[in-house]
């Protein structure tokens, strides 16, 4: 489960629509907690059943209103079970509180809290004394920050905005976004329900580049010490946006899964009902810079 937070007008709805449009076979269920305009583009909607909108590509969208209990119960009982649950938090919600549902509920895994910030109105909202504490909580509680509407703001304002954000939250990666568009694998991370981690090839590592993001992977069937792995993940710079891996842990049976987004690290046993059958190893995605590959190669060399 991923929680998308951010104040009103920050562009959450646009991003959600983008992610649904590019779901690429993932079955995403969105719970919407804002009650403003209709959140899902009309052309995506295939059917409406009570509170639940179903989309032609297998995704679904459910309005949660003020009743989190009912919304989570509906999402968890939804058949077939979605691959991802995406919570679009209300503009005044503290996303961490919602993320607690995933931390507490055994049937859910928290895939991170992502907060979207509107570069145009950030300063105004942040200094409104009725909202400042809410906005602060949205930023400090995030594992990844998306600074949206970057095309509408002069560079110096953008930099000022970024430095304020870093002041509140130094561990979450900060990504500049325009028009609320971000690729799904950065937002959700790799999808293991598909049966394997993408891009891992036996005995080697690869990396691919697109404009601003770089991808990296390594295959390994070495047994890995969980504590050492946690420490390694913790030490990675915030330019490494997401890491996910499936591995054998020293002194333990079966397969384990690790994932990191920002400061959120989760290492747990791979559910026994998982259909995973690919190579074990790790994949990462990060901001494209010259050290990207070296950082990851070095980090994983030490624990292999």
């Amino acid at each position, binding site marked *: 489960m991923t929680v998308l937070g951010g*104040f*009103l007008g920050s562009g959450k709805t646009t991003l959600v629509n983008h992610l649904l449009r590019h779901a690429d076979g993932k079955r995403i269920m969105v719970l919407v907690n804002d*009650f*403003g*305009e*209709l959140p899902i583009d009309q052309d995506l909607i295939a059917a409406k059943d009570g509170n639940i909108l179903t989309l032609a590509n297998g995704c679904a969208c459910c*309005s949660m*209103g*003020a*009743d*989190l*209990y*009912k919304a*989570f*119960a509906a999402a*968890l009982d939804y058949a077939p079970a979605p691959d991802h649950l995406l919570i679009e938090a*209300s*503009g*005044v*919600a*503290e996303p*961490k*509180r*919602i993320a*607690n*549902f995933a*931390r*507490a*509920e*055994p049937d859910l895994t928290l895939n991170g809290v992502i907060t979207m910030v509107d570069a145009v109105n950030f300063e105004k909202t942040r200094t409104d004394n*009725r*909202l400042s*504490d*809410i906005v602060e909580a949205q930023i400090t509680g995030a594992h990844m920050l998306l600074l949206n509407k970057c095309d509408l703001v002069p560079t110096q304002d953008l930099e000022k905005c970024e430095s304020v954000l870093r002041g509140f939250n130094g561990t979450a990666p900060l990504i500049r976004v325009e028009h609320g568009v971000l690729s799904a694998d950065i937002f959700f991370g790799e999808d293991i329900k598909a049966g394997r981690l993408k891009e891992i090839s036996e005995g080697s590592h690869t990396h691919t580049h697109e404009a601003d993001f770089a991808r990296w992977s390594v295959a390994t069937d070495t047994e890995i010490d969980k504590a050492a792995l946690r420490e390694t993940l913790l030490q990675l710079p915030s330019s490494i946006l997401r890491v996910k891996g499936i591995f054998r842990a020293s002194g333990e049976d079966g397969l384990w899964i690790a994932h990191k987004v920002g400061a959120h690290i989760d290492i747990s046993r791979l559910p026994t009902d998982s259909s995973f059958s690919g190579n074990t190893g790790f994949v990462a995605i990060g901001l494209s810079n010259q050290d990207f590959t070296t950082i990851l190669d070095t980090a994983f060399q030490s624990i292999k």
Partner: protein
Amino acid sequence: MSAITVFSAKKIITMNPVRPHATHVAIRDGRVLATGTIEEISGWGDYQLDDSFADKVIMPGFVEGHCHLMAGGIWRYTYVGYQDRVDPDGRQWPGVKSLEEVLARLQEAEADLGPDDPLVAWGFDPIFLMDRRLDKNDLDSVSQNRPIAIIHSNFHLMTVNSASLSLANYVADMDIDGVAIGPDGTPNGELQEMAAMFPIMRRLGIDLRELGRTTRSLVDFGKVCNRVGVTTAADLINDLPDEDVAQMRVITDGSDYPIRLMSLLNGISQPAEETRERALELKAKSTEKLRLGAVKIITDGSIQGFTARLRWPHHYNGAPNGIWNIAPEQLNVLVSVLHEAGVQMHIHTNGDEAIEVALEALEQAKIKKNRPDLLHVLQHCQMADRAQFRKMKRLGVAANLFSNHIYYFGDKHYELTIGPDRALRMDACQSAIDYGVPFAIHSDAPVTPMAPLFTAWCAVNRLTESGKCLGEYERIGVSEALQAITLGAATTLHMDHEVGSIETGKWADFAILDDDPETIGAGKLKDVGIWGTVLAGEKHKIP
């Protein structure tokens, strides 16, 4: 012409200042035909004299302006509260005064359950959390195998046994917010807030909202009202889907159903325009005993849960400010859209910042559109200061004050949440009177027990559970409190032309009392005995 029935009484308190007291009331077609002496009434023609209330005191049926249908349904769970309560069927549930009594009550309930039923209890009082907290070991002594969940009286906490913990896989310290950890490093059974409680509630089938929806809940809710003299009650939030409305109409239409029920549409689960359309649609479905069309809007949380929105200087103990359920700018839009269309709003505001934001939204809406037909209501309105009451007066806004809070949570507010200065002005009935703000007082049942005479006692005496007077200035007189639980509450529901006083033309809805609340003494107001009620001239004796 229909027959006239005349009730004689020891005293009739009418709440009509033109003739505040009478010895007789005449009823025709379910409505009050006349009040006065038998000589005055006989001018209307032949009548049937009914002396069954000759030694009783008759008041207008009480109006509970803020409660929830769940007050009926919650009784399917075992009551383990500190105060004595009576369930809808009249069974006395003495308050449990120690942890031992709590466990004994649970053991008793456990014996009656089927092998696969979970044991769920409610009403557990925070007073037991002062020295030693109830934990899983206590509950394991009741049952090792059967899942047990104890819902605390504030509905924000729960204590469960080991069998429940293992259902949710809460078996080790997994650093989950709200899952309390004991000295041995494992979860001790106490779960705080919805996120942590959810996995247990889901697995035990505890759905609090659903508790208000079944036929039995509606019937039980009517019984709860009847026992405390209430003839009109407002269910303050409901999703009101068509099938529920249809069911409510059938049940309330029954001549044995003892109350007029108002049910408010949840205003923050859909876009403003949809809420407006639905509210107008619902209004058209109203009947004499089911009132629909008003909207509830929840702005902040609760003071005792530290989730109310407070202005500077915020919480007394330094806790962070509370939460918004709707952003102030969204509230402005919603309030304007509903006001413009003539939809009455009941806006939940506990903290003074929430009150400020709600009043600003109402001010903007009222500047844009003059709707003198509408009286909007701030619900709870607990922390309003006198400037805010003056603003309510200027804007023509009413307040429904949560007087029961003074008794149940007043000590905590004084010591912990908001501190002495603001605790002393909480639920400020006298300030409402000073500035002429229409007001009611309420229970928010099942958060606190429904009993308007107890609520009136709270407003008159302002005593906390520990016996402290929380703000002498804001105490009001007995007659003012009686007005608040009748005509005052009817006014906040736009029903003051139909109920709330005993006068010609209004519904013959009465509370039938064993004692006289005007003379029993302010300290005993809560102890007035209740025989039952009359609704539209029909007697509903408490069974």
